[in-house]
């Protein structure tokens, strides 16, 4: 009776405890999460010989054990040997670990199955024929979301053999493979240097030349050196790489460790290294970050890239924005088909080629300069500015109206072969080339974006070569036609059909104009679209007036008023879309400091941080088209958003470090901190009012 009562009481207590500690209800340590055993690469060991014995861990799915540096939490596997007198055990050879992120933390360890080999040396006095039992107590922490310390008493019995023992049929190969793949010193030179953006770890050596570095990662031996969870920014150099590491406890209070040792994993190999304090050598940087995976650009040699660029340039000729212009120009060349004007055709071909190639190079130069200045730009950057988009749209419309026959540019097409046109021919062709590139840009952006993006990660010279190749490819068909009399004579002779052809070609241009109007609507909203449409109507009116004037002039009249009217209207239309918005809403801002952010967040307010600079074009564009709009101002007021500006116009170490910690080398960067704490949300580099409003709403909802 008493026993039953006691049993009931115990059951009650246990039930209460279970209820009180739901998460701890599963008693830990009862079920094993790791099966451990000792395995040897030989079937025995000779006196004085060495056998590799590995601790084999078979780890339950979803669980992991730890590397020698466990990272932010956890504990490395340990082993304590109990060996007969004279026998000696070395340390574990640690295979390169895996990164195991847990929430905001980072661990280093192993999943699945791992072998941790140890060299065990027999004494010379070991007696042949004896069976020796190697005993060890292994302790390891095994974790999934929760952690369980497990211990195992393990043993392995091996005979002492007269000569070298035979390899173990099961374990010789896995152990040898593990040892072969384990991190090894590889004559790499390494130095580290604390910098405002983080600790630079520069590693150079023959093993890294030409290695795939996109996944390069440094696992430190000591857990106090770096903040494990932070990303490691990679910069390649001709002789190696530089990793920018977030400093750990070891760098607190202005101190620095005497050395930084660990494992560099790069290109599928793992190297052991020890870095001393010092300035990084120039060969460890300068080539930018590796191309993102998937683009496959990293292995693309310069020659191959240039070849692709030539092909890309050729294809551009067929783009709807370009083909009409080129087709008409080529057709006009056909007028030079007759003997004496071949030279003229050649001149025009060359002038056109020069015009397009130089325009490509000028755009590339501008892009490189902007990039160097810290602006996050890509190809098509000229399209990030709504006024430019609007003007291009009007230009497309004007070209389309011209093709439709509303007015003529210079002389009529039919007169292209006349002496008058030949005189201005070379210059005209040059500008046709330039114009063709400018109008080609909207088409290049979607098609060539990734390839040009790759080119921009290269040193400026390589980037220029790629752009040059693109220009050559672009100009090639036209120049070829101009230079090949056979081709030229094969082109259909100008005639009445051209008028038809030309009018048909107007429609792709109308399409391009419509597309640009859509782009503008995305960037700037309905108000600007309305302005653009008004301007488009005015442009059409101006074109009609110009055509009227031209026809009067052709009849011998002097239509000064008509011509002037057309010019004024055209200028008015362009001015309408270029003129800055006057309805901009100024937002209250205050200067950024980390302390101010912390204080505002403590008040429970959402915080919007704008990392900007006066020289950053896209920042200014974003300010204009997104941040200074009524919609954003209202959203900020509604959600009581604190708006902080981090101005990077002048050099500022704190801001640079902040940018680096978000993996950015420059501005713009927009961060929105929610009211619930947690990390700031990074907004896209190209803002629209809608993006900002939504982000602010999300920040307040938390």
């Amino acid at each position, binding site marked *: 009776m008493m026993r039953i009562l006691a049993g009931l009481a115990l059951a009650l207590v246990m039930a209460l405890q279970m209820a*009180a*500690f*739901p*998460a*701890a209800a599963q008693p*830990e340590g009862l079920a094993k999460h790791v099966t451990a055993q000792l395995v040897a690469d030989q079937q025995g060991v000779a006196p004085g010989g060495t056998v590799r014995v590995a601790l084999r861990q078979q780890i339950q799915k979803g669980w992991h054990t730890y590397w020698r540096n466990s990272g*932010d*939490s*956890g*504990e490395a596997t340990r082993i304590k040997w109990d060996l007969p007198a004279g026998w000696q055990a070395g340390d574990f050879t640690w295979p390169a670990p895996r990164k195991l992120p*847990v*929430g*905001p*933390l980072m*661990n280093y360890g192993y999943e699945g199955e791992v072998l941790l080999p140890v060299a065990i040396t027999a004494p010379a006095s070991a007696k042949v024929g004896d069976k020796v039992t190697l005993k060890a107590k292994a*302790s390891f*922490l095994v*974790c999934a*979301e*929760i*952690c*369980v*310390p497990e211990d195992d008493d393990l043993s392995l019995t091996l005979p002492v053999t007269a000569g070298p023992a035979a390899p173990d049929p099961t374990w010789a190969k896995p152990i040898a493979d593990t040892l072969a793949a384990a991190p090894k010193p590889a004559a790499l030179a390494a130095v580290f240097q*604390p*910098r*405002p*953006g*983080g600790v630079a770890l520069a590693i150079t050596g023959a093993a890294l030349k030409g290695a795939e570095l996109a996944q390069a990662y440094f696992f430190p031996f000591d*857990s*106090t050196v770096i*903040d494990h*969870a*932070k990303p490691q920014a990679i910069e390649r150099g001709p002789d190696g790489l530089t990793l920018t590491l*977030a*400093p750990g*406890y070891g*760098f*607190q*209070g*202005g101190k620095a460790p005497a050395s930084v040792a660990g494992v560099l994993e790069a290109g599928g190999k793992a190297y052991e290294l020890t870095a001393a304090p010092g300035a990084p050598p120039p060969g460890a940087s300068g080539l930018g970050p590796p191309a993102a995976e998937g683009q496959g650009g990293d292995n693309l040699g310069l020659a191959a890239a240039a070849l692709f660029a030539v092909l890309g340039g050729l294809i551009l000729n067929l783009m709807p924005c370009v083909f009409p212009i080129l087709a008409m120009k080529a057709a006009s060349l056909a007028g030079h088909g007759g003997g004496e004007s071949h030279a003229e055709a050649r001149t025009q071909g060359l002038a056109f080629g020069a015009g397009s190639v130089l325009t490509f190079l000028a755009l590339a130069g501008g892009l490189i300069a902007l990039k160097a200045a810290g602006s996050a730009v890509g190809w098509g950057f000229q399209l990030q500015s709504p006024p430019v988009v609007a003007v291009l749209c009007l230009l497309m419309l004007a070209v389309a109206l011209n093709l439709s026959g509303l007015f003529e540019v210079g002389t009529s097409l039919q007169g292209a072969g006349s002496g008058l046109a030949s005189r201005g021919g070379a210059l005209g062709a040059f500008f046709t080339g330039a114009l063709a590139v400018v109008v080609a840009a909207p088409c290049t952006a979607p098609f060539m974006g990734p390839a040009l993006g790759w080119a921009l990660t290269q040193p400026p010279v390589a980037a220029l070569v790629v752009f040059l190749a693109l220009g050559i490819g672009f100009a090639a068909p036209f120049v070829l036609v101009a230079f090949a009399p056979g081709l030229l004579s094969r082109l259909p002779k100008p005639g009445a059909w051209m008028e038809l052809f030309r009018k048909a070609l107007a429609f792709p241009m109308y399409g391009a104009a419509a597309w640009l109007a859509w782009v503008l609507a995305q960037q700037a909203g309905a108000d600007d679209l309305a302005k653009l449409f008004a301007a488009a109507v005015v442009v059409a009116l101006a074109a009609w007036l110009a055509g009227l004037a031209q026809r009067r002039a052709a009849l011998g009249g002097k239509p000064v008023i008509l011509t002037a009217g057309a010019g004024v209207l055209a200028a008015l239309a362009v001015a309408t879309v270029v003129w800055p918005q006057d309805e901009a809403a100024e937002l209250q801002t205050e200067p950024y400091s*980390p302390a101010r*952010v*912390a204080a505002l967040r*403590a008040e429970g307010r959402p915080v919007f941080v704008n990392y900007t600079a006066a020289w950053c074009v896209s920042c200014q564009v974003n300010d204009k088209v997104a941040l200074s709009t009524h919609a954003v101002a209202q959203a900020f007021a509604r959600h009581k958003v604190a708006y902080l500006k981090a101005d990077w116009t002048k050099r500022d*170490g*704190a*801001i*640079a*470090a*902040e940018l*680096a*910690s*978000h993996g950015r080398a420059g501005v713009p960067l927009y*961060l929105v901190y929610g009211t*619930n*704490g*947690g*990390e*700031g949300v990074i907004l896209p580099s190209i803002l629209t009012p809608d993006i900002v409003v939504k982000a602010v709403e999300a920040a307040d909802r938390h």
Partner: protein
Amino acid sequence: MIARRSLLAAAVCLGLAAPAFAEPQLGQPAPPFKALDAQGHERSLSDFAGKTVVLEWTNSGCPYVGKHYGSGTMQALQKKETAEGVVWLTVSSSAPDMQGYFTGKTAQAWAAKEHWAGTAILLDGAGKIGREYGAKNTPHMFVIDKAGRIAYMGGIDDRPYADPESLKGAKPYVALALADLKAGRPVATPVSQPYGCSVKYNSAE
């Protein structure tokens, strides 16, 4: 030169630490916080202005926490220090459904079972205080001096093992830091590597 370097280091740390882990800086004001305790009272760091405050991150199911409570060393230190006027706040940042998540009730039951002897148990299931302090482990310890500045941060001692045997001969960093503060000495070891289980934050965050 030294001043410049530490300024640089401070800039580095501020810059790098802000977004993911607004890690407190040694010698800098401790980040303010507010939370409910196990009894449902609101506690704020400012309530304890002028006092030395210990923050202890805990997780009732973590074997490293078990090492210090099972042996009684944690409770002994809590008892001694609170008797001498130190405020001891035990914080649980385990998310709901994660190991060691505390409601007021479960926290009280755990405190009674372990003979916990601190000032208050703070319920931080949202992980707000934990993230603010960059608390990585259980136990992760912080000592805030009477002026409200971070005087110590890191592990409770120098033995990063779950094995209770490892307590023997351990260097008790927190106890030593508190002794230094009481004696008006600079803290000999103001920063150490924290160790233990990971704080069981809601990973979705």
